[in-house]
């Protein structure tokens, strides 16, 4: 038996191909939206992976350091190091800001997450796990390792607040949960950057302190100087990253820290839950809504196109019915055309999504599983969309082929 659908498609291939391309762009957008969501989830996982931590110790009753601000003393880690099951612990600060490149003809700003780390080499909590160029931070000040997504190169000079840093290493896929590339700098510099005031503010603060008789007592020499010195330093970090002994139960190690240090401790599973279920939940719902709308629009487009194509063949369908073609054969023709249109659209959509995904500023992760689910959804949509056209075709009276 001749494939009526196939012959019709070959006969009007231009119409089908161009319609398929249009539908494909729509499907490409849908796949990309799914990829954006997957990218956000992957960014969250990458953030956790790259921290190299098993436990996150943060300020009590906060969801820090990624979802809420958290502030703990920078000597807390010493006590944690002495807890059972802890192998390594390191302070870390996180600050999202504009990082400016200097020493170039045209200055440019890059939105980045500045991470303050203890420069103790690879494998230490908070350290970038691998570099694609250069070396790790070895000095206590003014060196930086940047993600290549920042666009910085080795030897570039970047400005963070008032200090200048030299990029000594480059890394890859080190991003915040929001997708901003990371710039690693020594902890002390990061602490300064986080709390540093401008010179005028410092002068005014010192004057205020000196004028306060409670703080500047004539009978207590050295008190004012001590106070001013304490105001000029920042003894806080956002979190302590902890690595535990291999095979140790994270919850068992975390519990004494919560109990004795009066701090909140998150295991990796809990931190993952915070990042995915809380931090990107609204974005995920937003994307979900887009996916639903795009699916409805795709269905409407396919239904409209197939319906229009079918209406254009009413006379032929009447003739086919008159000469004894079964309804099943006519339905199959329309269904096959709808599925073929969906197939063309899906192939085009997958190709364009693959090509334009890397151009997106944020990470777009196109997973084969999503493509498969998308393919099944497109096929289901095409089958459903063909129902209207099939009903129209089956309602055609074969008598229409006979004049009068």
């Amino acid at each position: 038996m001749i494939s009526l659908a196939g012959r019709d498609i070959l006969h009007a291939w231009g119409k089908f191909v161009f319609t398929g391309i249009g539908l494909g762009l729509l499907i490409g957008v849908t796949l990309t939206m799914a990829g954006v969501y997957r990218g956000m989830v992957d960014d969250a996982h990458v953030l956790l992976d790259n921290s190299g931590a098993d436990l996150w110790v943060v300020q009590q009753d906060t969801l820090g350091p990624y979802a809420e601000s958290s502030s703990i003393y920078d000597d807390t880690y010493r006590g944690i190091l002495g807890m059972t099951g802890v192998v390594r612990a390191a302070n870390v600060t996180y600050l999202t800001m504009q990082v400016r490149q200097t020493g170039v003809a045209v200055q440019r700003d890059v939105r980045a997450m500045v991470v303050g780390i203890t420069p103790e080499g690879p494998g230490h909590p908070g350290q970038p796990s691998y570099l694609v160029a250069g070396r790790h931070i070895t000095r206590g000040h003014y060196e930086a390792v940047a993600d290549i997504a920042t666009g910085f190169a080795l030897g570039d000079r970047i400005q963070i607040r008032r200090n200048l840093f030299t990029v000594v290493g480059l890394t890859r896929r080190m991003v915040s949960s929001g997708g901003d590339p990371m710039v690693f700098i020594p902890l002390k510099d990061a602490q300064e950057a986080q709390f540093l005031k401008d010179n005028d503010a410092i002068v005014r603060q010192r004057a205020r302190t000196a004028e306060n008789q409670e703080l500047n007592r004539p009978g207590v020499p050295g008190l004012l100087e001590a106070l001013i010195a304490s105001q000029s330093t920042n003894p806080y970090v956002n979190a302590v990253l902890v690595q535990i002994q291999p095979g140790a139960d994270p919850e068992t190690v975390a519990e004494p820290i919560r109990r004795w240090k009066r701090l909140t401790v998150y295991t990796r599973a809990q931190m993952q839950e915070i990042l995915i279920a809380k931090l990107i939940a609204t974005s995920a719902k937003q994307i979900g809504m887009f996916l639903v709308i795009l699916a409805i629009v795709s269905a409407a487009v396919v239904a409209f196109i197939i319906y229009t194509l079918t209406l254009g063949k009413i006379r032929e369908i009447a003739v086919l019915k008159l000469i004894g073609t079964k309804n099943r054969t006519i339905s199959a023709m329309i269904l096959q055309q709808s599925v073929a249109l969906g197939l063309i659209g899906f192939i085009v959509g997958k190709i364009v999504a693959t090509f334009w995904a890397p151009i997106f500023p944020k990470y777009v992760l196109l997973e084969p599983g999503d493509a498969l689910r998308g393919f099944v959804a497109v096929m289901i949509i095409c089958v459903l969309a063909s129902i209207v056209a099939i009903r129209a075709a089956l309602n055609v009276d074969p008598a229409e082929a006979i004049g009068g």
Partner: protein
Amino acid sequence: MDNQHPEISAQGIRIEALSKRYGHGDTAVDALKHVDLSVAPGEVVGLIGPSGSGKSTLLKCLGAVIEPSTGRMMLGNEVIYDNKWKIKDLRALRRDKIGFVFQAPYLIPFLNVTDNIALLPMLAGQSNREARKQAVELLEALDVGHRATAMPSQLSGGEQQRVAIARGLVNRPPVILADEPTAPLDSERALAVIRILNDMARKFETAIIVVTHDEKIIPTFKRIYNIRDGVTYEEKGEGRNFT
């Protein structure tokens, strides 16, 4: 191939006291009041009448597209209608035992000439190869064999109509219903179509009913059924030579 229908082709088509009423009660319209008609195998008869006389309704009844109200229809020795359909699968009846030729050719635009014709035997279950072979033979018989692989849009009006006739004949139906087959054609081509229908009727022992308004071809029929107000009147035609 089992579509020779010897029992039917021996008898042609016969209609007795056929009527068709549309609607009910006060709004009922009797489109056909009393139709008697018979066409022998190998015969071509004309069915003429003014607009609204019931020609199309009769054609639709004959084509098993609409159900008559009363009467009797026989294809060969088989009674297909006797106040109700006697055959369950009307679709198969149309496919296997009735050929159609329309006012416009209505060829399927996405199938080439051969496949337009071969589609019917394929629908009847024949193999593609056998169906195409049969189609090509018919095209040769109708002098359009050289256009076998062309698309309908590449044919002239006369060629399209000949292909449409081939499609009507391909399943060797005992009856062909031709609905104004010469309407879009000039005199020469119109007469050529009638000649082909006569040739095919004789060759395949097919009873052909040609509905027409066409003054050019009416004189070619030996027998004519004139339908007026739903009643058929048999008239002797001129049977003029159309060559």
